[in-house]
């Protein structure tokens, strides 16, 4: 059964995001250029320097029954919602081993988050302090452990080939999908459900990111605050949610007649080796990841027409990424329609790679690149290096094989680039 270079395809997608409770409504919001950012109305927000965020459009407790929801961290709730959608979208109606057309020993789950069950940890610490030891929930450990979302999704689908949680801050979701692709390519699994999730809209992470000067303080204009590539960009806006895809070997998908959205071509990974939080300003680490992607796959730069950029709306990071694309791809960069979808969803941290992989796959499937909103005055360095899709969605070539990249980078200097293409 084992082989080392099998073709991997995407057969299912699911999401719950600031733009919608599923992949379809999220995609609709992205193409329409809608912002999911809002003013934080919670009492605790009043004393924060940052008082905006992008909460999910549909509260998970509206979807998950209460007894189940109360024993899941919010990040696991998002992951389960997105995973259920992706699993059903792939045409699977049951768990592996209970009717679904997949061997549980050949099914994996790889769901990641950047921070894990941070709200559970902090809420239960409040319980400990205010109500005492006895009242701390016995569900605290399985709720806060960073592998909780992955383990819960694994249980949902009946995955026994391996359940993994790569953690690399804001690259986590992309690294999870890359890991899933490799599990199939190398023959460890035939099907992997993979993605990212994050739920960190809580006073402590917001205070901490705010004090790092990493977040936008544009409290007066929530919907205009996330503005990648704009001269006035002043940091990211925290978003929450999850994006999950079903990866499958091409032969497994063909055998059961599954609909194929796109091929998951592969990944390129590197580390900056530069600073714990600052991006390397010339994008050298990112270039290295892009070069690894080209070296490790049969991706043809001439076929790349779209990049879902990392583009968090921070002064340094946005441009470094575009310089790296130009450095590696040269004139081919001219035919990349570059989209910064965090302008609409905010930055979902470890969930970003999941949601943006869903967006990238749908961009290829529908042959449309979503816009980057809020660019009033484009940074000349961005304009010089890339063709940024501004204002409105743009049609991609209607014919021929096309490919797209999804970039994700994380604090710690982690760089992950995923490539997808039409089939």
């Amino acid at each position, binding site marked *: 059964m084992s082989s080392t270079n099998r073709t991997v395809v995407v057969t299912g997608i699911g999401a719950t995001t600031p733009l919608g409770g599923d992949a379809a409504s999220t995609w609709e919001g992205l193409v329409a250029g809608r912002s999911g950012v809002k003013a934080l109305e919670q009492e605790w927000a009043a004393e924060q320097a940052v008082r905006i965020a992008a909460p999910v459009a549909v509260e998970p407790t509206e979807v998950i*029954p*209460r*007894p*189940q929801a*109360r*024993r899941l961290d919010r990040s696991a709730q998002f992951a389960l919602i997105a995973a259920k959608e992706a699993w059903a979208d792939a045409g699977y109606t049951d768990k592996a081993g209970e009717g679904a057309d997949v061997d549980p020993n050949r099914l994996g789950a790889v769901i990641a988050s950047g921070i894990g069950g941070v709200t559970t940890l902090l809420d239960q610490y409040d319980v400990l302090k205010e109500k005492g030891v*006895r*009242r701390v*929930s*016995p*569900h605290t450990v*399985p709720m806060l452990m960073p592998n909780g979302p992955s383990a819960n999704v694994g249980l949902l689908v009946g995955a026994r080939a391996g359940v993994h949680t790569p953690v690399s801050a804001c690259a986590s979701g992309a690294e999870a999908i890359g890991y899933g692709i490799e599990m199939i390519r190398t023959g460890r699994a035939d099907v992997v459900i993979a993605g990212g999730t994050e739920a960190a809209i809580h006073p402590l992470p917001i205070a901490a990111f705010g004090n790092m000067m990493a977040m936008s303080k544009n409290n007066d204009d929530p919907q205009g605050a996330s503005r990648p590539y704009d001269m006035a960009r002043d940091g990211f806006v925290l978003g929450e949610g999850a994006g999950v895809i079903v990866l499958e070997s091409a032969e497994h998908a063909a055998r059961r007649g599954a609909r194929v959205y796109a091929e998951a071509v592969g990944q390129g990974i590197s580390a900056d080796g530069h600073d714990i939080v600052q991006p390397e300003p010339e994008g050298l680490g990112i270039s290295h990841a892009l070069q690894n992607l080209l070296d490790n796959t049969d991706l043809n730069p001439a076929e790349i027409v779209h990049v879902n950029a990392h583009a968090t709306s921070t002064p340094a990071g946005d441009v470094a990424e575009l310089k790296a694309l130009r450095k590696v791809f040269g004139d081919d960069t001219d035919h990349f329609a570059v989209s910064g979808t965090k302008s609409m969803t905010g930055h979902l941290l470890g969930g970003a790679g999941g949601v943006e992989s869903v967006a990238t796959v749908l961009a290829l499937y529908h042959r449309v690149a979503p816009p980057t909103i809020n660019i009033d005055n484009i940074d000349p360095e961005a304009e010089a290096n890339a063709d940024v899709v501004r204002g409105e969605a743009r049609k991609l070539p209607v014919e021929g094989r096309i490919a797209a990249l999804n970039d994700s980078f994380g604090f710690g200097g982690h760089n992950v680039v995923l490539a997808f293409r039409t089939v």
Partner: protein
Amino acid sequence: MAATQEEIVAGLADIVNEIAGIPVEDVQLDKSFTDDLDVDSLSMVEVVVAAEERFDVKIPDDDVKDLKTVGDATNYILKHQG
């Protein structure tokens, strides 16, 4: 004022409903927490802590394993409530 058997069963029914989502009318004296009411070992700890608070009673961990049914818990609370 000490709770009656009826009040304790009703209170446990509310707690089990909150924790496991079981309809209150299904929570009867002869029902097993794990086999009939979908309360696993971790959730049983939650039921016990909620019952302690509601009925002003202490239920040491060593005694929890003897509380298999709603009737067991009701009798325990009747006997030990403050």
